[in-house]
């Protein structure tokens, strides 16, 4: 890896087109893909009923025994796929907000968006909504919060630090609203809502995975398009403006994309905290890139969440932990790592 300079990149030109390639980032992405594949295979194959690895493909495509088909195709595969997609959405959403706030802790978990999604979700739970209503409530909560935070932070433009502070205020407010709802609800609703608030992938089916996949499909091109101007905004609004970036427009688009990603992910799995915080920074350390990168953050998020979910299912088996407990532990460890002086 010595031949790839830290954060180094190659410009590949072909006539009028040029692409910038970072060999190390590509290598890290490939390794993350491989890790994701390994976790997926492990999650599909192990558990109370072991399906040998060679049988997995057959079971997925209707060639295996009925039992294997049921367990792999109906139970394990949707859960793993939901985990991969939700993790990717959280990772990318986190990367967007960390870039906008220029702070490794500027993740949607702390600036109100995840809390807003939670509020929407538990209101739907208490109102006795179906899984679909709960998901819709979460997405709506996230979007409404984001619009309010953006509007309140707007003063002829939204500076990163004002977004953070207004978001922290909104976060405190919404957490209080959440605990108010929990103390007022009847005990059954409170238990259901409390479980949903931890974030879990258990019992997730294809209907949970589909909206996240759709959101990723739509938002990936947008994110790819704005990633370069976002990099410039990291250098400061004035510098970016001087280079011809329409700062407020890019920032609004980035916030919209980040909020939608966080919202659909929370709708599918509940507010799983800390994935959005840890994934972009872990990816950045591996790729040694100067700022957070969207693609590797998404891959890292997918790997982190599925690995955490696998551990949550198997560590204390037969007791099943909610994945949110595991990601909270990851978040704590990560904060301690962050304590070490940041040399990059």
């Amino acid at each position, binding site marked *: 890896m010595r031949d790839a300079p830290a954060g180094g990149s190659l410009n590949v030109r072909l006539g009028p087109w040029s692409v910038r390639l970072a060999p190390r980032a590509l290598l890290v992405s490939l390794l993350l893909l491989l890790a994701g594949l390994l976790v997926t295979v492990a999650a599909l194959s192990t558990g109370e009923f072991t399906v040998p690895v060679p049988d997995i493909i057959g079971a997925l495509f209707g060639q295996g025994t009925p039992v294997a088909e049921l367990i792999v195709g109906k139970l394990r595969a949707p859960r793993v796929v939901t985990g991969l997609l939700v993790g990717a959405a959280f990772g990318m959403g986190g990367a967007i907000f960390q870039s906008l706030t220029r702070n490794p802790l500027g993740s949607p978990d702390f600036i109100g968006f995840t809390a807003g999604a939670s509020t929407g979700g538990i209101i739907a739970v208490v109102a006795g909504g179906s899984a679909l209503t709960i998901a819709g409530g979460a997405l709506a909560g996230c979007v409404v919060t984001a619009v309010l935070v953006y509007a309140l932070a707007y003063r002829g433009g939204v500076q990163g630090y004002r977004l953070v502070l207004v978001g922290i205020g909104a976060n405190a407010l919404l957490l209080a609203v959440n*605990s108010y709802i929990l103390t007022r609800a009847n005990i059954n609703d409170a238990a259901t809502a409390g479980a949903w608030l931890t974030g879990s992938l258990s019992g997730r089916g294809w209907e949970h995975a589909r909206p996240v996949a759709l959101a990723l499909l739509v938002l990936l091109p947008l994110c790819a398009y704005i990633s370069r101007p976002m990099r410039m905004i990291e250098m400061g609004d004035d510098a970016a403006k001087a280079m011809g970036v329409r700062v407020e427009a890019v920032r609004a688009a980035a916030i919209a994309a980040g909020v939608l990603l966080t919202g659909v992910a929370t709708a599918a799995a509940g507010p799983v905290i800390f994935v959005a915080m840890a994934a972009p920074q872990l990816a950045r350390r591996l790729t040694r890139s100067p700022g957070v990168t969207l693609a590797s953050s998404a891959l890292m998020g997918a790997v982190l969440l599925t690995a955490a979910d696998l551990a949550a299912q198997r560590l204390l088996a037969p007791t099943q932990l909610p994945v949110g407990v595991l990601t909270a532990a990851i978040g704590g460890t990560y*904060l301690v790592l962050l304590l070490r*002086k*940041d040399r990059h």
Partner: protein
Amino acid sequence: MRPAEDTAADTAAAGAGQAVSTTRAGASDERAARARPPVLVAGLVVTIALLALVAMASVALGARSVSFSTVIDAFLAPNGSNDHTVIRELRVPRTLLGLGVGATLGLAGALMQSLTRNPLADPGLLGVNEGAALGVTLALGVFGLSDPTVYIWFAFGGAALASAIVYALASANRSGSSPVRLALAGVAFGMVCTAVASAILRMDSQTFDRMRFWLAGSLAGQTADTLVRLAPFMVAGLVLGLMLARPLNTLALGDDAGKALGVAVNRTRILTGVAVTLLCGAATAAAGPLWFVGLIVPHAVRALVGPDQRWVLPYSALAAPVLLLGADVAGRLIARPGEVQVGIVWAIVGAPIFILLARRKRVAAL
């Protein structure tokens, strides 16, 4: 992320903040000069009168309607009736708890803002109360220690650890700790503590049932006995904190100027840290992790009395319980026959004020 630019941006922000704060400080000096000591003493008397008024309201008002004469009888001629029992055994301890917790959190916030020169410092926002809450949860949920004089040490441990970690997190980049960094680090660490605490509670439904209201921040549910055991720690913290006004005043001029004027800089820092730990640990052990009490009260106080800590600290310690008890009484009245926990009331009222502060042109440094 990009340290170089980050540093530059932070320095620029800090520079601008200083410029603003110089003019602000000038303005408040003028105001302080206008507000002569006699006026300030009179203000303290008014605050104490308000405190007495709110305390009376807190004893008299609640989910159960009790006539005023019954309230007076409960003190002068207790006859063991339900009303009298409610007043003597529930409302009076609760009111005293509110006084103690309000005073400790108000003073803790003022001390933290002065020590970190950060206008956004608040025991709840910076994760110190959450650290203390995690300590209490560990003591009660894992080790089964239910004696307040024992588990308060866990609260102190959690609070001290949280202060150290959050401060280190915020200054991990060489650019030092800006208000925004400190706030984010505090919120992040606080959420880790809360997540771990609720994971512990989920494993044990009995403890969960006992602690879920405490975790939302509540003045109800502590017995007079607990209060008596926690009170010495609160008093110690209050006394220590109030004694630090003079050295903190000098340190506000900067470390070098402080040293030149004969202040033991490190000793003052450490003593302030000890006071903050005592205050936050005791308050959290008593009432759960409360947000914003320590943020908003010192802000309001500074706007009224100017930057002199010799006035800011006692005013904060007296004004905070007025507001905390007021919020507690409001929480009992707005959702009768149930009640809204004071922590929830404070967050719902305090968060918009925090957002207003954050929307100012610059978050002025202290």
